[in-house]
């Protein structure tokens, strides 16, 4: 191809990607903010209120004391829950039940967190996280199985299970799991070993050598993966390059040394050792987060890891290939030899596990009592359906949109205080964003964006007649 045409094609491709992935959500966001401003203006009768409200929103979300921290605290469950929704969507399933799975994860974690205080954190914390994940996974796998085997639509069954889980949690909190030492109706405080470390507590936690070792090993694992990615990329480039042979007196080719052959392993070991030795000392000497009331906790890392892991799972593994195929065309999936039942159940289980972890994180990291109180209402689950849609089920998009929603949720209070505008205006704006993204026709019409009718994507999930 001539470079000129190639460049034209590239520009065209770029504009298409931009149009399809970013333009619509951005337009939707802007339009929603403008309409929100109009509503505030009309209802308060003064344009100044609009400025007060939006500046309060931004200050509350980012700049006030602990504002950014609190926004991130709200972002964490959003990320995990919308990843849960996205995994379902990718497999052609509409998991409306994330809120219920979130509750089940929370109650499982509340149980596992207080069941013992004899374990070290490196065992107890993963155990608690796993319990929450497992609880959510099983809770979600049931509707998955029903869908695959009997055709019972997951929207109906997961909504029904939501109510079952709300009531079940109420029963457990007020009955068998109730903390008898407390006057409030809540589960017992989880052991210190099961708490998710708040950022302020990290230096202290790292003084325990076991914790330091665990953290070091995690860093080592990351180093291992990064080194492997780099090596793969280099190998691929080498493959693509034409081979040149040196004939005669070239330098004799040296056999690759142990270090080059096992570079990723070496990177892992070195990183682990360095982090283990140096990190506890360094954080004692200097640590930026000293505010003991700062609720930001290491669940943030967990959310980031989850996003990367889900991206890898969906796009780089055979498991994800199967899930996406089943979601995109179950008939072709069957033809290709994939087991529909297993994949539907698996997708729901992964989805439920993520939602369960979100519930766990709320109990272990955020709730002031580090327990599950009776009135544990979140609404996170329903918002995250909107987030997943808005991010077009892309894990990295989800990170961004979750932060947007977390920031709005957090900034709403100061907005109300600042301008007297009810904080439910935020829900209104979020609803508008959702409306505009799920009905792109409106946006295209308003902004006169032209598209080919055939190029539009099909529905995310199939309806009742689906043969999945």
């Amino acid at each position, binding site marked *: 191809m001539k470079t000129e045409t190639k460049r034209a*094609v590239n520009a065209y491709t770029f504009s298409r990607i931009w149009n399809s992935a970013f333009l619509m959500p951005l337009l939707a966001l802007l339009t929603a903010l403008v309409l929100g401003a109009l509503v505030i203006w009309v209802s308060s009768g003064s344009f100044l209120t609009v400025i007060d409200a939006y500046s309060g929103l931004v200050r509350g979300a980012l700049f006030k004391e602990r504002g950014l921290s609190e926004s991130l605290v709200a972002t964490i469950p959003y990320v995990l829950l919308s990843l849960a929704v996205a995994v379902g969507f990718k497999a052609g399933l509409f998991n409306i039940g994330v809120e219920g799975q979130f509750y089940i994860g929370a109650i499982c974690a509340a149980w596992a967190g207080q069941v013992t205080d004899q374990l070290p954190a490196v065992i107890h914390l993963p155990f608690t996280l796993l319990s929450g994940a497992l609880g959510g996974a099983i809770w979600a796998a049931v509707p998955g199985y029903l869908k695959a085997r009997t055709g019972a639509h997951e929207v109906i069954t997961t909504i029904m299970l939501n109510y079952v889980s709300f009531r079940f949690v109420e029963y457990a909190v007020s009955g068998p799991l109730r903390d008898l030492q407390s006057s409030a109706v809540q589960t017992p405080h989880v052991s210190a070993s099961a708490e998710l470390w708040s950022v302020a507590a990290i230096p202290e936690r790292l003084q325990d050598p076991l914790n330091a070792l665990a953290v070091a090993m995690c860093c080592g694992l990351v180093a291992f993966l990064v080194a492997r990615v780099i090596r793969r990329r280099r190998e691929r480039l080498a*493959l693509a390059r034409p081979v040149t042979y040196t004939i005669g007196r070239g330098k004799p080719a040296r056999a690759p040394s142990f270090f080059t052959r096992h570079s990723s392993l070496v990177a892992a070991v070195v990183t682990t050792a360095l982090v283990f030795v140096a990190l506890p000392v360094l954080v004692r000497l200097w640590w930026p987060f000293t505010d003991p009331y700062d609720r930001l906790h290491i669940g943030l890392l967990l959310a980031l890891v989850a996003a990367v892991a889900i991206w890898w799972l969906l796009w780089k593994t055979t498991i994800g*290939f199967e899930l996406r195929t089943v979601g995109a065309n179950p008939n072709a999936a069957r*033809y290709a*030899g994939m087991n529909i039942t297993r994949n539907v159940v698996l997708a729901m289980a992964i989805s439920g596990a993520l939602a369960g972890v979100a519930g766990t994180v709320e109990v272990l990291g955020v709730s002031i009592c580090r327990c599950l109180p009776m009135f544990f209402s979140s609404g996170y689950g329903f918002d995250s359906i909107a987030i997943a849609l808005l991010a077009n089920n892309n894990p990295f998009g989800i990170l961004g949109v979750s932060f947007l929603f977390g920031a709005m949720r957090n900034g709403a209070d100061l907005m109300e205080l600042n301008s007297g505008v009810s904080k439910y205006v935020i829900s209104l704006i979020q609803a508008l964003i959702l409306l505009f993204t799920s009905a792109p026709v409106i946006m295209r019409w308003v902004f006169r964006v032209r598209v*080919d*009718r*055939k190029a539009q994507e099909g529905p995310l999930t199939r309806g009742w007649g689906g043969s999945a």
Partner: protein
Amino acid sequence: MTLALQASGITKRFPGVLANDQVDFDLAKGEIHALLGENGAGKSTLVNILYGLYQPDEGQVAINGQPTRVASPHDAIAQGIGMVHQHFMLVPPLTVVENIILGYESVTRGTKMFGQMSVLDRRTAAQHIRALSQQYGLEIDPDAYVRDLPVGAQQRVEIVKALYRQADILILDEPTAVLTPQEADDLFVIMRGLAQQGKSIIFITHKLREVFAVADRISVMRAGRMVGSAKPADATSESLAAMMVGRDVILQIDKAEAHPGQPVLRVENLSVMDDRHHVMVNGVSFEVCAGEILGVAGVQGNGQTELAEALTGLRRVADGKISILDHDVTHATPRQITEASVAHVPEDRQKHGLVLTFPVRDNLVLCSYYRTPYAHGVEIDYSRIEQTAADLIHTFDVRTPGMATAVGSLSGGNQQKVIVARELARPVKLVIASQPTRGLDVGSIEFIHQRIVQARDRGAAVLLISAELDEILSLSDRIAVMYKGRILDTLDAKSATRQICGMLMAGVVQY
């Protein structure tokens, strides 16, 4: 002569392709204008533009001499254009009537005050549809569910749908690809009738025989350009094929004598039911040996679909036994059957064969993504997949801007090539191919036929199921004719003729 439709200078770009390049096209009143061209030449794109599905980047359209803009299919229908798409656009769980009136519902009188809430007037619509189908000789049952209809009948529903909306210009995009020769001939009678009543028809096809049978004028496209136009009287199959492909095409394949070996596929007393529990395959027994091609001929709907689905594990076997290389696979899963070295070209490419939203690359490994070298453990090695994909795209001449392009945006014939490439490139012992060349241009058919014969010569057993009698006659070593779920007779290809096969296909056993 007035022009019903005139398009000039139409240009349409897609990412990485120039699908239409300054195309001029016109259609006279009462004319049947055939549009020929290779797979991916831009025929569907052109007619989709005329129907308002795509907007041209450049160029003008005039209808009845009036310059106009077709903004959407709705707009096209309002201007009297109807279209039958290459891939049907019917809603399977709805009835014929509901499908036809969809979007143009008439409502019972007196309920207007409820506006959108008014009651659907199915009865009047059904009467109207019956009248239409009688007037044009298009037999359909308005109350049948579309999902229960064979493809031929679905085709008629699509045509009636266009007529119901009072189309004067009818666009038929490869209407005969899914029809048997008999059904196609019926369609030509209908088309002639419509043309006599003043309707103008654009007719896209790959079958040269049909062009001569029905067209008044022929236009040929290649690589997005209009390269020529001819009257059927002045053209020959060879000249048209050469104009389409840009080189001479061998319309007749020559293949060596078969050397059958051990039986690979053995079917005993097989019975299979369809989704409505009608027995579609009724006690069928046959064998396919290594190194031979067994052709299954028959009018579509006589159990071939169910037979292929049962053999590949997609449909439950009601009775009987299937074995591949002496392993019982009667109740095996599709995966187990693939693992037994079986390739399957499915009949319905968009339903079973492809994931339309996935890139070409992924579709090319749809059946082997989990094996080495494409995957290590659970991790997929996309660089290996890309190597294979580049290779297959080149060998099978799949016209695509790149391997990352969604397969759904390829032209129909190129979608088919993706499937055939995937299935025929694997080293297999048994090939089950249903309509492998459906929708392909003459050049590609030639190539695919060579590949099938090559697979046979390498020692694979081939079961070829096709509604194209010519394809069966020219490729097969033995021919089994199916009628109402039974194999009426198995003929040696040397002694089989069109007549004999034709009679068997109609259920006549004495000849």
